[in-house]
């Protein structure tokens, strides 16, 4: 055993680090470091940099444009991108719909969509949740009825992250109502410009507008946009949920936030002493930091098993639960750290290049909204309650 990077691993780490340092646009880095709002263009510019380098889709098979990296190598890549202040690659295309297309799609679909995902020409969003079906995803009602060479899709999707930017949506739709609710679901790729689609923003209580309702009214979707077999969509959805383990824990991004927290706690003063030197606060930081170390090591153990050929299993629910708890824990300590400076609500401060001077310290404005916004982390993407159900049933056999 060896906990250190291998010689090749260390070389690769340096390569990624230097690449990010040299190629990440300075304005994007500034926004990420300052917790400012990223626009669509920011994401796309960075994704195109990765695309040009051939690093946009490490998880794909090499024949479609993947890198052929081992899981641990991918881990290094993710870590160095995050530590270098690169924005996250938006998952919906590269890491969500693409693996489904690669595994279950036909050749035409692969030829049509994969290159456009690689090049960020298409922005994808995810049409899973509906108003009536939150944690109980399989109870979805959005209906697709066959009509000639088309499906006619009617229904509503919700919590659709960044749908306002999207060119395409992958949807779970109900094509049959007769059997168990998990049966009769199909997996459709839908052009967001199709007539009958309306996107309505849902404002969240932190003040941001990153999620949406997507209304579909008699939307015509060519049958060629069906992935795999009709009624088999639940299988593909489950494949997707269990597929992705690299990065789910968000260890590197939490490390980065932890650095920021410590910097801020070292700047804030309590009766002239840094807050960081107050034993009670230092203890809380240490608890989260120790949890983060445990999370990273757990992720490495799982990735190491994966490198050794062990199939992805439900243990990744651990990564989701602890990953979000730690992210939320850091936002909680951040808001604690700044005291009254968390009170002013200054939406303009989230925008890069603002003219007004900050209220309080220059890092303060984004901290409370970030704390509020991040409550979503334990709700979206399979709530932590659902993750615990999965562990109880799939791992513990209860």
């Amino acid at each position, binding site marked *: 055993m060896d906990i250190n990077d291998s010689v090749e691993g260390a070389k690769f780490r340096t390569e990624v680090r230097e690449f990010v340092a040299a190629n990440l646009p300075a304005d994007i880095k500034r926004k990420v470091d300052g917790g400012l709002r990223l626009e669509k263009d920011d994401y796309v510019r960075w994704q195109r940099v990765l695309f040009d380098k051939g690093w946009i889709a490490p998880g794909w098979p090499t024949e479609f444009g993947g890198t052929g990296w081992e899981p641990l190598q991918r881990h290094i890549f993710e870590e160095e991108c995050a530590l270098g202040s690169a924005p996250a690659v938006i998952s919906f295309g590269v890491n969500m719909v693409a693996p489904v297309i690669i595994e279950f799609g036909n050749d035409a679909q692969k030829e049509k969509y994969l290159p456009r995902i690689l090049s960020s020409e298409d922005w994808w969003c995810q049409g899973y949740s509906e108003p009536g079906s939150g944690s109980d995803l399989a*109870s979805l009602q959005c209906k697709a009825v066959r009509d000639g060479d088309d499906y006619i899709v009617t229904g509503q999707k919700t919590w659709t992250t960044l749908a306002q930017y999207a060119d395409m949506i992958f949807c779970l739709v109900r094509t049959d109502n007769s059997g168990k609710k998990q049966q009769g679901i199909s997996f459709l790729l839908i052009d967001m410009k199709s007539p009958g689609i309306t996107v309505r923003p849902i404002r969240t209580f932190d003040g941001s507008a990153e999620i949406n309702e997507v209304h579909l009214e008699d939307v015509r979707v060519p049958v060629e946009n069906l992935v795999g077999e009709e009624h088999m969509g639940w299988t593909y959805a489950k494949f997707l949920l269990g597929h992705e383990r690299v990065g789910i824990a968000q260890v590197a991004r939490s490390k980065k936030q932890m650095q920021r927290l410590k910097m801020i706690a070292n700047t804030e003063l309590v009766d002239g002493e840094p807050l960081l030197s107050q034993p009670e606060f230092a203890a809380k930081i240490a608890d989260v930091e120790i949890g983060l170390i445990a999370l990273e090591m757990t992720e490495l153990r799982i990735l190491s098993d994966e490198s050794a050929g062990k199939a992805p299993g439900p243990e990744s629910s651990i990564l989701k639960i602890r990953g979000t708890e730690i992210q939320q824990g850091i936002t909680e300590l951040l808001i604690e750290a700044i005291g009254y400076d968390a009170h002013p609500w200054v939406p303009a401060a989230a925008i890069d290049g603002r003219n007004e001077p900050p209220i309080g310290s220059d890092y303060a404005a984004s901290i*409370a909204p970030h704390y509020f916004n991040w409550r*979503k982390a334990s709700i979206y993407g399979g709530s932590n309650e659902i993750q615990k159900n999965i562990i109880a049933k799939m791992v513990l056999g209860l």
Partner: protein
Amino acid sequence: MDLRLSQEQEMIRDGVTRFVRDDYEFATRRIGAVSDLGFREEVWQQFADLGWLGAALPEEYGGFGGSAIETMILMEAFGRGLVLEPYLWSVVLGGALLQQGATSAHKEQVLPEISSGKARIAFAFAEPGSRFNLAHIGMTAKKDGDGYRLNGNKTVVYYAASAEYLIGSARLGGAKTDREGIALFLLPSDAKGITRRDYATQDDQRASEIIFKDVQVDAAALFKCGDDALPVIENAIDVATAAICADAVGAMGALREMTLEYLKTRKQFGRAIGEFQVLQHRMAEMFILEEEARSMALRAALMLDAPAPARKKAVSAAKSLIARAGRQIGQEAVQMHGGMGMTHELSVGHYFKRLTMIGSMFGDGDFHRKRFAAL
């Protein structure tokens, strides 16, 4: 020992509960929240007419001579409705400062204006870098002729823009965190040399950064100084802290009720999610936290007249527990509402934000735990 409300107190409770339920719905509240003032002047007048502004003020100054219990009853109801009107700041905090610290001239002038709704007060006590230390005062008051000249910065002064009077803590002498050398000044909020930067807070309230630049006040503006000033400030902030604890209890109660209601109506996997035992136990824990918070807010109110060490200990015990309980109840309420809990449309998130802001107001949980343990 007697923990029962008097008949008069029960009447106030019934009245304010009815008002919040019937006349202060979430949609109505929004009108005040988006207005320039941040609340509705007519509601403030209504408070005056109903006798609430004077409920806990002395009869000699136009009040009804009530106690901290009246304040608690009103604040809990206001918390339940996320009421925006600056009762806490003007009546409770401003009133306590004046009652404890002011000259009779000041009392006779200002308190009747407060209880009748003619004027409001804001208290500028926090400064950049002061965190929760009330003695951390960098603003200076220099003798200048018959009066004083004030210079300094105050931060997050709640409801300064809508107040006719400002009370400011300033330093006549001593180092920045000395307990001595502090003075309190009462001055018109539009005094020359005052610059404000107004903003909304995370929870739809209003506050300002205030710069005092060569603000001239006459000698009568000084209403407390020497060794007495800080104890007056501490007492008033304790009174306000007990009141905001009741505010939090009201918000917790509303959150718990709406979450309970959601659990009973929202269906997943073919049944109301309230049938899931995990959520039942977590709701039970929320309920216990709320009851503990209610007990502590009551106890803090009842101990406000005790000698300073006992008063401080009771207030800090309450605030420490309530900061923690408010965070947990808020987080659980959002979590149990799922995606709906994240929306701006539902009130859940707004209660969550309010409880978060209350968490650090007048000192966060760690600050008060430490103050409690040190006494």
